[in-house]
């Protein structure tokens, strides 16, 4: 006997099963390349194309080879340095600009903001050559400055993120601070900054990941090995050791690990960033 309640339950079970099947399918599509790389990093060179995920004799030595073939620690240090500098700069300048666009009253504020936001639509490939010329004029090509300074002073995305967050804070707090004698800088620093920590986390994580994964800009700017980033190291390896796929896979996995660490540490900020802005990074 199947009553109406039973039918409803059955329908919701079917729906849940279908939903989870679809989600598992999508997750598999996203994860498979990474799993394949992990598997490949443990295979032998001749066995790289074998269609199995679990090699019979895992070649852990592939990981050791990475360290002998590229200056991994050096490049890791460089990448961390660039990522940290750019992240600090982004957080500081974007939050300042976001505060100004959200709260300070000045002529042409909203127009300026829209114009600034419009720069989001210009892809990096369009500006990369002018930026290169600019860096060359400063004499910064092939120096760490080229990796740090252009990203230091904020971005339209980060400013937008911060502005939206500032707009959610009650104006009462600032007015109370004004009456308590605070200057705009003191309001920003002492009153508002402690409240925008969630947005700061989001921006910091997104920026960090962005710099970590960036490839085009370092490729254009950097030639010296001792100031190169990990992404560059990986590509150079591909050129020099084109046949050693397992080692390349091992290098890829190694580069991915710190990112997974950051993700694990700041997963909530990450998810919040995506829900807050509607897009996961730039």
């Amino acid at each position, binding site marked *: 006997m199947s009553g109406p309640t039973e039918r409803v339950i059955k329908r919701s079970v079917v729906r849940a099963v279908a939903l989870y099947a679809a989600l598992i399918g999508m997750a598999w599509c996203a994860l498979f390349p990474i799993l394949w790389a992990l598997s490949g990093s443990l295979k032998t060179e001749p066995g790289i194309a074998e269609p199995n995920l679990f090699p019979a004799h895992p070649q852990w030595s592939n990981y050791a080879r990475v360290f002998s073939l590229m200056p991994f620690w050096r490049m890791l240090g460089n990448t961390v340095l660039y990522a940290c500098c750019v992240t600090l700069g982004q957080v500081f300048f974007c939050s300042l600009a976001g505060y100004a666009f959200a709260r300070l009253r000045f002529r042409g504020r909203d127009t300026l903001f829209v114009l600034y936001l419009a720069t989001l639509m210009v892809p990096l490939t369009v500006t990369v050559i002018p930026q290169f010329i600019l860096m060359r004029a400063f004499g910064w090509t092939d120096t760490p400055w080229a990796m740090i300074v252009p990203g230091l002073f904020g971005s339209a995305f980060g400013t937008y993120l911060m502005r939206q967050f500032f707009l959610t804070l*009650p104006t*009462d*707090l600032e*007015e*109370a*601070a*004004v*009456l*308590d*004698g*605070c200057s705009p800088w*003191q309001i920003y620093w002492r*009153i508002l900054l*402690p*409240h925008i920590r969630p947005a700061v986390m989001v921006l910091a994580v997104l920026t960090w990941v962005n710099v970590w994964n960036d490839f085009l800009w370092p490729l254009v700017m950097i030639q010296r090995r001792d100031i190169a980033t990990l992404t560059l190291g990986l590509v150079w390896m591909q050129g020099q050791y084109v046949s050693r796929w397992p080692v390349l896979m091992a290098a890829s996995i190694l580069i991915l690990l710190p990112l997974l660490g950051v993700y694990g540490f700041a997963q909530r900020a990450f998810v919040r960033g995506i829900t807050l802005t509607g897009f996961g990074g730039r």
Partner: protein
Amino acid sequence: MASVGFEHATRRYPGTARAAVHDLDLTVDDGEFLVVVGPSGCGKSTALRMVAGLEPVDSGRIRIGGRDVTDTDPKERDTAMVFQNYALYPHMTVAQNMGFALKIAKLPRAQIRDRVLAAARLLDLQPYLDRRPKDLSGGQRQRVAMGRAIVRQPQVFLMDEPLSNLDAKLRAQTRSELAALQRRLGTTTVYVTHDQAEALTMGDRVAVLRDGVLQQCASPRALYREPANVFVAGFIGSPAMNLLTLPIRDYSVAIGDWVVAVPRDISDTAAQVVVGIRPEHFELGSMGVEIEIDVVEELGADTYLYGRIITPDGAIDQHIVARAGWRDPPARGSRILVRADPDRLHFFATDGRCLRRSY
């Protein structure tokens, strides 16, 4: 301590046709507790913010202690504000909240501590000094907001509906505490509320605002007894004064069967008049206007009868509220006769002006 003066002060928000505060001319005396009251959107908060400097003044002047502060920075005005939502800094403890302004002013740490402690004693906040606002009850937060203002020892307190987030019982209690505190400190206070009970019980004087225009500024008693116009008459008092617009015939008006003489100076010049009768001035009796009772509201001490006037031709007409003695109030649906002492009636012109005050 200082007086606060509005001199034809006007504030018009950009893009609006009507001024939020229009040509406000008002002086708050040194040490006085002035309540600004009015319905929402009447400009009372704007007026307060003009004193604080949070709102620019489009024309006219603002004075504090005789000094023209119209173009002065908020922090130079020496006012302290208590916000409706208290606006406590969530990331600071109670003590830090209270001492923040002094810290910004770079006072010595010992002095800040002394003043915070003194204010905490005054407000019974000592046990909570190390807590954060989120760990406090609504009443405690309200006291912290007060404490933050007191610590500053400002020339003027500005309070923007500071009790509206408290529940009714706590509000009534805090109301009297706050008024007593103000009298003890003697600090000039401008207090904004939409609650006429607060206005009448707390203020030395009460200013009634409507659509940005000052209607009347007087002591609570004068406001109640001698409202300057129909708006004030209807706004102050709960339940509101009965206001009946009636034609004048033979020097009198007819409220149902009850004929009331209109003073000659009014009946000579007007064809219509608005008669105002406070609910408590009605007396149940064997003569007067017949009303059919729709609702009986028993409040314990008082009973209010909400009914409609029955005209001589039997039609049921305007609504009316009357206070009845508490012993045996009439039942719903019954018809009663009420009348009031003619000396206690208010007469207003149809444009709202007061023509004759009672008492």
